């Protein structure tokens, strides 16, 4: 491997060293002598792979140790001390999350000392945790509250703050910080610095004055925050939460002069059941449609429509760039970067503004849909767009920022009025008394109604790329993608590997389809080309990709790269139900791919609603003048300097 490609394989994690994990890896060969080690937990003997932490070992025998600073997605921290256990022969209690077992040990998980320490830790955290549970957005889904209940807290042993110290920062469209509820577990710090490499938060000051700060204590709206909301997903309490627009949406619903429509992204349907006690990966697409109508939304649309539209627009843009590079031999910005993820877009605006020309100018599906509702839909239904309120149900907090970008108003009105997260919609359902899992089923509204597999997989990392490959391959070669990939499953771009790379040789070409005839006359120039693509999720991985491209590494030869700000893609979005971890994300992904397989239409260019749109409305075709005005946008080189 060349040096310049090291960046994509080596970890770039700059976590404070105190929190880097102790390189605990399970041994490769379990049949070897010494591959497992005996641990005695509360009198029960169990053999675990060498290097297993006490926390993991206890779980294997059904003992749940309490945790607060520990999170499966993040490196070991060992600071909250609530998971401490007694290890025989050791003077002090040990944090079970940070203790790898390398020799036989005997552990007591609920001795007097342990119980006392845990209770004290919880009481100490409660003593500085301002606020009452019933006025908290995380009521009933709070890890501190749960521990207080489990450990029988019935009074504030060490008192309780009765005045806020910091106040609430709700300057951001996406993320509200309420540091009076912070328990200093530093999950947000590790999320923002290690997982996302954005670096909004860090612990500042020390001793009893320690708090989580932003640079110069700037409000969230004025930082380099990309609004991905990953910190919210990992916050154990209500210290971080999304900026909830549901009151404004209720007001719009209540207003008889307003026509309130909602579009629903693919990811929420795979996860909203979690807010109603269902297992992750239980799809509730049709129940949700009915529930939204019960709430009073006038129309319920499927964002899959505009996802397919995105493929057509972005795919066409890619073809144009390829044509420029290969035929005209002019510099074109390749690889082309996807633009669906608003967190990613803001990331590149801040951190790599010099590379913005690589980003597709296509708006995200959310914004495309909004622009069409206030033009095309308004026109055919004869509704004044001023009276239309567009709501977007998204797995995403960054979408709240995106819909408030001033440039996103090509109809003359805001494309999207409100971005609503999965969690917030579940809240609206509960407020309306809706028992979601038991709702009757109903379908989406026309004229955008057709559910398509190619749209739904946008919810998983690699989904945009998979849809793009399905469509581009067939449009160019005239062959069925199934000839190459069984059931059109483009396996190389699926999965949760941080950066994935795939090649697609184009050995033969077919006729240019009608929809693209105004742009190219034939495909001969693509014959013999190997299409190179990559997928990255989580902005730390995005950073690696960009650095590799800058260094002229392997990925600089790509033609098209999908970026998603959130680990796992949208199904791991900052607006999705809490908690999140790899297992939960995988379950949601399974639901999404299952919906894809069950769909009749699984290729974007075959979506009848999209075909109709180009016939009736965007008559000058993909990347034509009209689509350019409505469906494309531009970016702002924001840079990362605040002063």
């Amino acid at each position, binding site marked *: 491997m060349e040096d310049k490609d090291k960046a994509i394989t080596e970890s770039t994690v700059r976590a404070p060293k105190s929190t880097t994990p102790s*390189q605990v890896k399970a041994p490769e060969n379990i*049949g070897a002598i010494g591959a497992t080690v005996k641990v005695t937990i509360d009198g029960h003997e169990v053999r675990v792979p060498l290097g297993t932490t006490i926390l993991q070992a206890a779980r294997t025998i059904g003992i749940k140790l309490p945790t607060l600073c520990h999170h499966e997605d993040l490196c070991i921290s060992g600071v909250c001390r609530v998971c401490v256990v007694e290890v025989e022969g050791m003077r002090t209690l040990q944090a079970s999350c940070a203790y790898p077992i390398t020799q036989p040990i005997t552990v007591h998980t609920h001795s007097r000392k342990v119980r006392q320490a845990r209770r004290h830790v919880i009481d100490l955290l409660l003593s500085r945790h301002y606020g009452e549970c019933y006025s908290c957005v995380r009521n009933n889904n709070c890890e501190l509250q749960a521990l207080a209940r489990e450990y029988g807290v019935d009074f504030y042993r060490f008192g309780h703050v009765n005045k806020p110290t910091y106040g609430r920062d709700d300057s951001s469209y996406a993320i509200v910080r309420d540091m009076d509820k912070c328990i200093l577990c530093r999950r947000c710090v590790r999320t923002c610095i290690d997982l996302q490499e954005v670096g909004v938060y860090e612990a500042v000051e020390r001793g009893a004055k320690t708090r989580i700060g932003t640079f110069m204590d700037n409000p969230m709206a004025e930082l380099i925050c990309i609004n991905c909301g990953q910190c919210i997903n990992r916050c154990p309490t209500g210290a971080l939460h999304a900026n909830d627009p549901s009151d404004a949406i209720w007001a719009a619903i209540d207003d008889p002069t307003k026509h309130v429509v909602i579009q629903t992204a693919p990811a929420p349907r795979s996860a909203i059941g979690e807010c109603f006690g269902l297992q992750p990966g239980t799809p509730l697409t049709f129940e949700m449609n009915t529930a939204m109508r019960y709430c009073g939304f006038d129309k319920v649309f499927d964002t899959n429509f505009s996802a397919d539209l995105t493929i057509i627009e972005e795919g066409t843009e890619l073809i144009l760039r390829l044509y420029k590079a290969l035929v005209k031999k002019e510099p074109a910005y390749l690889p082309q970067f996807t633009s669906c993820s608003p967190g990613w877009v803001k990331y590149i605006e801040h951190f790599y503004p010099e590379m913005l020309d690589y980003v597709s100018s296509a708006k995200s599906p959310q914004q495309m849909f909004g622009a069409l509702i206030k033009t095309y839909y308004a026109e055919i239904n004869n509704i004044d767009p001023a009276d239309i309120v567009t709501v977007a149900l998204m797995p995403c907090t960054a979408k709240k920022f995106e819909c408030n970008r001033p440039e996103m108003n090509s109809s003359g009105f805001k494309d999207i009025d409100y971005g609503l997260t999965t969690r917030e919609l579940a809240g609206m359902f509960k407020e309306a008394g809706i028992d979601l899992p038991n709702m009757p089923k109903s379908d989406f509204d026309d004229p955008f109604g057709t559910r398509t597999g190619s749209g739904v997989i946008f919810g998983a990392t690699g989904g945009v790329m998979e849809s793009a490959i399905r469509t581009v391959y067939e449009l160019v070669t005239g062959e069925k993608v199934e000839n190459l990939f069984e059931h059109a499953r483009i396996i190389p771009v699926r999965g949760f590997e941080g950066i994935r790379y795939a090649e697609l040789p184009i050995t033969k070409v077919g006729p240019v389809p009608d929809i693209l005839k105004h742009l190219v006359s034939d495909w001969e120039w693509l014959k013999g080309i190997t299409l190179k693509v990559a997928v990255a999720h989580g902005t730390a991985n995005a950073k690696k990709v960009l650095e590799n491209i800058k260094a002229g590494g392997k990925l600089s030869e790509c033609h098209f790269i999908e970026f998603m700000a959130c680990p796992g893609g949208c199904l791991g979005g900052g607006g999705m139900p809490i908690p999140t971890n790899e297992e939960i994300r995988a379950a949601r992904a399974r639901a999404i791919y299952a919906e894809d397989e069950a769909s009749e239409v699984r290729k974007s260019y075959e979506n009848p609603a999209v075909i109709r749109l180009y016939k009736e409305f965007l008559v000058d075709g993909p990347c034509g003048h009209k689509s350019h005005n409505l469906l494309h946008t531009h970016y702002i080189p924001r840079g990362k300097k605040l002063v």
Partner: protein
Amino acid sequence: MPKILIVDDDQDFVSAVAIVLESAGYQVATAYSRDTGMQIFNQENPDVVVLDVMMQEPDDGFVMAQDLKKIRPEVPILMLTSVGQVTGMDFDKDEDLVPVEVFEQKPIMPGRLLERIRELLNK
């Protein structure tokens, strides 16, 4: 039949290694600490020593290896420790500080262990 001394504070591990070695026909002596290990070494005159690193003291294995080389430098030592893979510790043999013939990491496949023992005996 050659005699092998196993010194390791993990008793489970010692018995697992002993079973493998005995079934291959070797005689086996065991000790769970550096002190008893030295005693048994002097009594039994083993042909090979299989030695752990961290016992009562974290550097017991290194010290014992150095001591053994002072008494009978011709007896080969196979150092076998878990620290490498699990805790990120990266030890290896060193003529002066870690005077052992073979350095292996736990866990080890039985076949590999026997192979290394055979190599040491043939030297």
